[in-house]
């Protein structure tokens, strides 16, 4: 996004909103990750305690999801940079 047309008051206001969004986005990601890893790893309800196998699955699932998100984010950022470079090329 391009904030160059924003006044400094507008930028400060926007920063405050974005900071709040980052917190709520993080909390949503946390809830989503809990649900996803629970659904993938827990299929045995003959006991209420997590088995060591389930436990390991949860740890791997969490770690792998974060790495996955980071990789998607990196590729996504590259693709957006390419689009903007192409747009600027066209304008000049």
């Amino acid at each position, binding site marked *: 996004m391009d904030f160059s047309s924003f006044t400094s*008051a507008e930028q*400060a*206001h926007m920063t*405050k*909103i974005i900071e*709040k969004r980052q*917190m*709520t986005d993080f*909390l*949503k990601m*946390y*809830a*989503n*990750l*809990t*649900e996803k*890893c*629970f*659904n993938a*790893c*827990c*299929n045995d*309800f*003959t*006991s*209420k*305690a*997590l088995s060591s196998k*389930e*436990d390991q699955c*949860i*740890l791997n699932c*969490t*770690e792998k999801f*974060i790495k996955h998100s980071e990789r998607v984010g990196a590729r996504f950022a590259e693709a957006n940079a390419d689009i903007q470079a192409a747009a600027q090329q066209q304008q000049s």
Partner: protein
Amino acid sequence: MSFLGRGPGNATNGGINMDKIDMALTELDTVTDFFNRMVQSCHSKCINARYAEAELNKGESVCIDRCVAKFNDVQKKVGEKLQSRTAANAGAAPGGFGAL
């Protein structure tokens, strides 16, 4: 969201601290979201989808109890993992995720 609605600067409105209200609402929304996902997950893990009867049978009831316990454990484990990752990245760890 409420930041937007209010405009800047008036964090206190008629003797009400809006930032405090905001934080309480974020907490409420987080617990509600978490609870709703637990209901959905345990429903698909424990409830027979044929719906031949309206009552929870013995097996389903026991499954629900264990499912809630496991879901809570998973939430804690995932929180600890996220926290240790954040701590490793940022240098310092914020307050715990374990209990909402």
